[in-house]
């Protein structure tokens, strides 16, 4: 498909992607320019200081495997494995509302090969203590079905596959010899279409309904006596 070339507007790159039909605005997408210039390039070089064999093309496949393994661990609810695949910051976000539910997830295929979109390194407290974060773009076909405690479908479908575009941030403590690449966060761009609504209805309690003031006929004691007198006479 035809790609309209990138327009460099300060730091943000604006991409018109006709294949995926997503409305564009400042997307952090840099394809072929990543290797040539910019802070991401310097970050990759910094990572190579610690990890000699670090190559973005090899890394994306590893990242894809971590992504799939995380989903599988979430379905099985294997907490030990999840801690290996996901950082401490991301763990509560991943685990959120997982209990008392059954998940059925299937990875069908990758629509586009995963690409590294963004890379940064930073030092925490001391100058030598380097952490690296790399953002990978995944465009895949997946099925997800979420069932509640009683085995009733809450969300999704086991049969209908959906295209999933995600920007996943992987983090590694490169200064540590035993550091591993783990999922740190997910970036949801502004231009992403809204998610599928849940199947059941729910109350919006925070909306205050103003009471409608009607003119009520206040029947006082005198009026009641009058009506009784009128009826009797």
């Amino acid at each position, binding site marked *: 498909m035809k790609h309209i070339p990138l327009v460099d507007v300060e730091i943000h790159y604006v991409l018109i992607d006709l294949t995926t039909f997503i409305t564009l605005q400042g997307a952090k997408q840099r394809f072929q320019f990543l290797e040539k210039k910019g802070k991401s390039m310097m970050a990759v070089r910094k990572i190579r200081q610690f990890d000699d064999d670090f190559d973005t093309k090899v890394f994306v496949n590893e990242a894809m495997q971590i992504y799939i393994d995380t989903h599988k661990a979430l379905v099985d609810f294997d907490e030990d494995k999840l801690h290996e695949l996901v950082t401490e910051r991301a763990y509560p976000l991943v685990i959120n509302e997982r209990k*008392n539910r059954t998940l059925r997830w299937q990875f069908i295929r990758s629509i586009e090969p995963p690409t590294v979109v963004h890379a940064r390194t930073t030092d925490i407290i001391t100058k030598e203590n380097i952490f690296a974060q790399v953002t990978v773009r995944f465009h895949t076909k997946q099925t997800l079905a979420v069932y509640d*405690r*009683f*085995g*009733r479908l809450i969300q999704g479908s086991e049969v209908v596959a959906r295209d999933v575009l995600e920007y996943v941030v992987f983090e590694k403590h490169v200064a540590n010899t035993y550091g591993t690449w783990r999922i740190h966060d997910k970036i949801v761009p502004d231009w992403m279409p809204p998610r599928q609504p849940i199947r059941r209805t*729910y*109350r919006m309690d925070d909306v205050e309904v103003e009471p409608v003031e009607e003119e009520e006929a206040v029947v006082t004691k005198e009026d009641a006596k009058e009506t009784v007198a009128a009826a009797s006479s």
Partner: protein
Amino acid sequence: MAASTRHIFGWKALPSLLSQMSNSLVRIPVATLSRPLFTNRTLAPVAGKLKLVSNLHTSACCAVGIPQGPRKFLKNNDVVYPPTPFGEKERHAFVCHAKENIKYSPKKMWYIASLVRGMKIDDAINQLKFVHKKGAVAARETLEEAQALAVKEHNVEYKSNLWISESFVTKGMVIKGMRRHARRRFGTVRYRYCHYFVTLEEGEPPEHYYPHTRHLTGPEMLQQWMEDLRKRNIKFVI
């Protein structure tokens, strides 16, 4: 008699406050003491923070602590059922809730629990508003909490689409006090607590919660009568 009462209740351990107890309606419960007086029989088998390995007194009675509330019933809320297979009926949502240590006699609470059993949730709450009993307040709170829980945590869509499938009372702790009678006689006063359990299920309640106690319809009564007639037997005849 006085000597025997001293032996049973551990007279020496009581403060002088008890000696000033009147014979009036005001009963001073022993709970105002630093520790409640428990006998073997009123203790729950597993109590407080210490677990009794056996039913022998391996430690002092007072170290056992206040008995814990119920434990098993609420575990029903953690059971996860597998997804319903294709073609089968969907399972109804349910939520188990309990209110523990209500200061009310279990025997009296039973009437309230029985009133509410098998009713729709809204009807039950409305009825309890007009039941002039102390336990009705606790029962109503339990039902309202259970209804909120069902919607929030157990994926129930409509809060009114619930009925009470289980409603029962169990005995809570019993604190014993004393009251005086005439002629140097003393009686025990039992301050009873109860636990109230409720299971709300999604859907329509059954027409008859107890099918065996329902009124028979006309044709059913006729059939019953005919069967009774046919069962008649003339004794000692070939």
